[in-house]
């Protein structure tokens, strides 16, 4: 079994225009056209939210914008679906605690 197989190699994607976003302050490499969730997966990050009730970690589940498990705080705005939002250079993604509106005191 070839060890060098990768999704990008399979479809012959151009990977030389990579850029950086940050997740909880650490740099993460993203490719143009990738969603935030895809960039996080590529970095081995599977969780970027904690649930309202149990504080449990969650990340992307359905991958198509239907399940809302992948909600994250992006550039300070909570409740963005990371599987739908394209990564842009300099984006900051931070782990979303609960409903993401703690600062409102609700």
């Amino acid at each position, binding site marked *: *079994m*070839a060890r*060098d*197989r*990768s*999704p*990008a*190699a*399979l*479809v*012959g*994607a*151009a990977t030389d*225009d990579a850029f950086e976003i940050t997740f909880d302050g650490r740099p993460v490499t993203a*490719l*143009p*056209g*990738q*969603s935030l*969730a*895809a*960039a996080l*997966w*590529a970095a081995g990050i*599977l*969780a970027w939210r904690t*649930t*309202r*009730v*149990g504080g*449990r*970690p*969650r*990340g*992307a*589940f*359905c*991958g*198509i*914008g*239907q*399940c*809302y*498990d992948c*909600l994250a705080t992006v550039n300070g*705005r909570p409740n*963005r*679906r990371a*599987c*739908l*939002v*394209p990564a842009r250079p300099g984006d900051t993604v931070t782990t979303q605690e609960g409903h993401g509106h703690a600062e409102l005191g609700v």
Partner: protein
Amino acid sequence: MPNSASDAPEGGLEDGAEYDLAVIGAGPAGLAGAVTASELGLSVALLDASGQPGGQYYRHPSPDLGAAHPEALHHDWPAFAGLVRRLAAGEVTHLAGHHVWTVARAADTEGSWDVHAVTGADGDGDRPVRVRARAVLLATGAYERQLPFPGWTLPGVVGAGGAQAMLKSGLVLPGRRVVVAGSGPLLLAVAASLAAAGARVPAVVEASDYLGYARRPGALLSHPHKLVEAAVHGAALLRHRVRLRTSSAVTQVHGSDRVAAVTVSRLDRQWRPVRGSGHRIACDALAVGHGLVPQLELAVGLGCTTRRTVEGTHALELGALQETSVAGVWAAGETGGVGGVQLARVEGELAGIAIAARLRGRAMASNARRVRELRRRRARMRAFADAMAAVHAPGPGWPQWLDGATDVCRCEEVTAGRIREAVADYGARDARTVKLLTRAGMGWCQGRMCGTAVACLAAQARGAQPAPPPERRPLAVPLPLGVLGALGRTPAPESDGAAPEDRSDGSDAVG
């Protein structure tokens, strides 16, 4: 193509625009319907949430990723390429990045429909858009059916379709060793593409016994291409040394903050786990799903009649030419019952011809032979789809996978124990009552992930009725309140939070 998301200012531009036909969903069914109707002389708007056409089946990397061979992750790519060529060459207005949240009768124009959408990658564009049309084609596709089991909320557990979607569009894998589990033909396709992309797939865990196909030879033999497709997947799985375990299910996920292993148990004919049959498989991700469920929010909101499918979900009741029970509203593809990509293309084309005939007359006579052919193919493919759905329908014993602490509703974190209490102690007999008592299905996803499970658990109560039709949910996607507030007003000019006087519109207002 007159415009697309890339060259239209976000929202606004199309507000109030009028068309003969609004098609909702740019997957295989919607694309086929839109280009067919447009080529027969209708003005067509094609609204879709994604940035590019293709829907879920033909989901592919954004042009920015510069994939030279997107077809490497696809079957039937030339058919899609043909539809996209016709879309680009024709007059269809493709409104990408438009999340349709409701379709309603136009209040001031008899026989017209208002399609309401919000724009942006995740519907966060803050700009309501209204498109008016004389006919509507719903091609909203499907989402994955999930059945819960202990540990399924752990990071690293993803939908089988979800893993496929993330791979097709983002070129990423959820892990390096990925177990694929659930039921249905999609699992073989998912396993084959994950393996082709470099993942190690230790096993495909299929709950049904596959003997169901042997009991339905007629449907199989009338679809030799399906046998070929299965053989292609089978060969790929052999090549990548993927083991297929039938009559089995993942009954436990192990790991503290992410997947480290799964326990696979054998199932009896009822899908009850066989005691003592569990064994562990080390993996760092699990891709799981039980086939697809038609996406019906917009249709149900319009009052379209549904029917119960052989596998116990709901699909739209459609006429011979794809019209719903609501005159002027047609549907194609998975909305009428899950049946796959070829059926979706056939139904989309059929609907496109039928709508052109209704609005323009004469189209039906000149296309009579084509219509007969499409109807014949549709009947054959629907029969096969029903046979397949029956083979993979959830067995009645699957709730025995659950323990009391298993979250059934992922959004509201409602456990199996609390749902059983609602059923056993408080007399809930359907999903709606369970929802009122426990909040299961009341969260962000509006019951899409837990709906099947909750309905099953409620239906197993003594004296339960067969599942009632799907609930009307007036909003198909979550909306900022400001969008509702803006209805009936002229949309405000583009605003990114700046005060109005900061807009460079030539009015030098002093703040």
